[in-house]
């Protein structure tokens, strides 16, 4: 395959290469075949029409383009790149509510008057100290719960 300057076969996983040009498409687009079309379409989407574009991509994937893209991707230079994003699409709607749990550590640590006291002491350790150490465990537990709930 003829390769443009600066692109070697060894580094052909194009996701590691940064666009040299000002904007727009990845430099490896020309020899990606159909994949480049997808990229073009994607790079036009902006933050404002995010949900619309997500919906469009989903419907594209559902309407038979899916197999096409996967074939191109796995045969092509991007490897198994698309697979994780497909998994993500399966995420249950509403599961993002779990992220609200992450506010607990913020509330628990930023309201200082709540814990700036010696009592109730535990094994001789003032509340101020053991409470904050406990919050480390609570915070870790909450990130773990949210991790598993949104996995």
């Amino acid at each position, binding site marked *: 395959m003829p390769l443009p300057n600066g692109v070697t076969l060894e580094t052909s996983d194009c996701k590691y290469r*940064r666009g040299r040009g000002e*904007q727009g498409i990845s430099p490896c687009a020309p020899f990606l075949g159909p994949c480049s079309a997808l990229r073009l379409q994607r790079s036009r989407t902006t933050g404002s029409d995010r949900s619309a574009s997500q919906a469009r991509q989903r419907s594209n994937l559902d309407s038979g383009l899916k197999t096409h893209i996967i074939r191109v991707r796995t045969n092509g230079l991007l490897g198994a790149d698309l697979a994780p994003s497909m998994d993500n699409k399966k995420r249950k709607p509403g599961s993002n509510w779990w992220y609200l749990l*992450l506010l607990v550590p913020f509330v628990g640590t*930023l309201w*200082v*008057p709540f814990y*700036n006291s010696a009592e109730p002491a535990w094994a*001789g350790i003032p509340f101020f100290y053991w409470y*904050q150490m406990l919050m*480390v465990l609570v915070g870790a537990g909450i990130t773990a719960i949210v991790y598993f709930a949104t996995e």
Partner: protein
Amino acid sequence: MQLNEGEITGPQQSADEQELVLTDYSPVQNVNWIALIVFALLFGFITWLGFAAAHWRRGDLNLLNEWGLGGRRFGTLVTWFLVGGDLYTAYTFIAVPALAFGAGAVAFFAVPYTILIYPILLVVFPRLWSVCHRHGYITAADFVIGRFGNRWLALAIAVTGIVATMPYIALQLVGLQVVIGGLGLGGEGWLDELSLVIAFIILAAFTYSSGLRAPAAIAIVKDILIYITALAACIVIPIEVGGFGKIFAAIPAQKLLLAVPHGQSTGAYSGYATLALGSALALFLYPHSITGILSASSRGAVRRNAALLPAYSFMLGLLTLLGLMAFALGIDKLPEFVDGFKAFKSNFAVPALLLHTFPSWFVGVAFAAIGIGALVPAAIMSIAAANLFTRNIYREFFHRDASDKQESQMAKWMSLIVKFGALIFILLLPSQYAIQLQLLGGIWIIQTLPAVLIGAYTRWLNPWAQLVGWAVGIVTGTWMAAAMNFSATFPLLLGAWTFPGYSALYSLALNLIVAVVLTPLFNPVSKLPQDQTAPADYQA
């Protein structure tokens, strides 16, 4: 991890703050040969490991992605060690307990600070990891130029990152100096400088040859040693003193808790909370944090680490208690440590406590843990700064057609320049300059939050408006710190109330207000370049 040592307290502790600043040396004590030999053996081992790491998960080190990000091949466990070793630095292990020793309860702000970084890591950074992985971005500024298409905003991000990182590297040397002094090498003046130079030549050489793989491999050794040390100290010392109850009973009331605010001021409470929040927001904006996260092999590895990394926070809390234990033991009054405290002030608290409590061979292990703990973050910081310079200054502004090999070669040279700059800084200037610059570094780096963290969600903010906001934030934050004589908290007056708080957070608020107000004004007159990233890239 970011720490504004000696600058953290509310106004009432300002007398203590001054004591924490290091001065020049005086003789410390006799050389502790057994500890020195153990220390040297462990240093020898990690030197070998650093060079051998070049062959670990072999990749072509002539690619910046391989040299500067370890080929993004680190799984959950290695990322845990790498990021843990990266964020919880030697200076942290020396300075946080030192602050507890000198100023008491306020030092514990490090605990809420390191609690709050993990929700942020879990929510924001998988998105950033995905988009950077998809597009091959190596630095935060790479992402910014892809997202906003404005090379000047990216330049601001890159320069801020480099400038904020340099004093941080210098501070790692301060941590190293303290343990070298603790080994008894501080006496002659030139001996400790020689040790420092040797340590840094080792660091520079293995970073140059192995890139990010070296600190990743060494972090595993260092973190295991640190965990052993922290656990041993927190079991043995309370037993020796007679329980935690006795330790806390020996702490005077004004040090045991934060001062309760009085009058129309939120006092130490708002200072404590804003320091924790502001430091947490700033931490993952530092180039070395982003480098550590981007080197993870998968989005899942980043997410899992948000739940696993708090183990380090727990250890940091234990280590902070060491400062209180040192105080309870009256360790600075012991004749053998008087000279050490004269030379290093409160920073000598942990080394003295370890020397006091443990047999020499274990002191060697513990000091090696701290010393190696200086090299790991210093290596990652210099790599991160080198990546930024190479990608976003050299390649973007000077040599657009640089080949991959030229790019990685430039980064290797840059990592040397950055490190030796830090070394010369520490050898020639009083270390309080490094401490003050590091405080400013925290204020500066947080100004990149709109472009990097908010940019991960929306590109609503106009890049030129962000650039103006960034400049306003840098100038006002620097002014606040300078006006308060390089104390981290600034007494913000609103009506009749005073809110002492972390100047980084206040200047960030101003930065955001400016950016939000200017965005609708700038949008009609500036051409908005295309976004290279697509919404799906953030979920991939």
